[in-house]
């Protein structure tokens, strides 16, 4: 009996699964890509989407057997966006004029600078952004509960139990948050 080489779907199956996405599926993923790039306005959601696709096609990303491809693809978009964010966060705000010349007299490259730590400017920007969100939802306790619950790693059911909100109120709060984020990106 020939055993499968890995526990992942092969390339052909990945191609078929990507080709089977409907227009509605692509629209959902396009919007997810848009949200995942929130505060990375210089990056294009379509590029994130196609970069994720490419990673599945060239084998950098796998689709484990027994898992739903849509769920795997969704998580891959988030993960690739996180990579972009980590790269972006490590870059300080400098202009080319601020850069010293290299040993060969050529201007140094921005990519040569920064570390994996969040730069002070980026940390400040995140703090300001969070203050803006809190100010926006200062009177909306359900939205605050949804955000706090997620930060604490609670499930939807746990958030509902902890903060005494109904499933309908939870979903309505998540919808308000989503609509708010949509407006911020426009």
């Amino acid at each position, binding site marked *: 009996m020939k055993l499968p080489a890995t526990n992942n779907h092969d*390339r052909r199956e990945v*191609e078929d699964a*990507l*080709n089977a996405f*409907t*227009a*509605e599926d*692509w*629209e*959902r993923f*396009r*919007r*997810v890509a848009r*949200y*995942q790039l*929130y*505060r990375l306005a210089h990056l294009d959601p*379509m590029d994130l*989407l*196609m970069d994720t*696709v*490419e990673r599945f*096609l*060239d084998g950098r990303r796998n689709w484990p057997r027994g898992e739903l491809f849509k769920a795997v693809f*969704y998580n891959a978009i*988030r993960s690739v966006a996180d990579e972009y964010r980590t790269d972006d966060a490590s870059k300080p705000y400098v202009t080319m004029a601020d850069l010293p010349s290299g040993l060969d007299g050529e201007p140094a490259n921005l990519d040569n600078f920064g570390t994996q730590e*969040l730069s002070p400017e980026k*940390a400040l920007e*995140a*703090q300001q*952004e*969070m203050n803006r*969100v*809190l100010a926006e939802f200062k009177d909306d*306790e359900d939205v*605050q*509960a*949804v*955000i*706090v619950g*997620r*930060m*604490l*790693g609670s499930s939807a059911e746990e958030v509902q139990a902890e*903060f*005494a909100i109904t499933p309908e109120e939870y*979903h309505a709060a*998540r*919808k308000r*948050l*989503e609509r708010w*984020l*949509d407006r911020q990106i426009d």
Partner: protein
Amino acid sequence: MLPESVLSAGLIGKSIDGVPMSKSKSDNDALKAIRDLASEEIMSLSDSEIRARANEELVDIDKNASTIRDSLKDLISTSRRARLHQARENLNAVNEKSASYESIASMSAADIKARLAEIVASGLMAKDSRLTLAFGSGGEISENDMRSLLADYEDLMARKRSESDGAL
């Protein structure tokens, strides 16, 4: 309702054990929570809801999907070509290797020794390679060892040639 104590204490920014998280970490965690919650909301929409939403915002999802499918087609085609190219290269390497083994198997011991000396003299091998060291020490190498060494080095040189061709 959120308990008053939670609101007044400002729960955002506290870890699960109530100890304040560093400000930048908590802010980033909160923004990540917002991004993920909004993404989940979108994923939970039905086909008709996502269409209605797109219509509302004048987004043509069929046109977008068509653009994405065109890009996908190109990516699949590029990816297949790359895999085919890689497979051909692997096959060539295997063929070269077996041709090299066959030709070495038919060489006399003297010819093998002469070819090994040629390789050492070419300076292509590192000074600390097994072959260079063996020749430098002046010690005797068995015929089997010489055949095996020659096969290894011919293979290594073929790979170096193929790499330098690829770099051009």
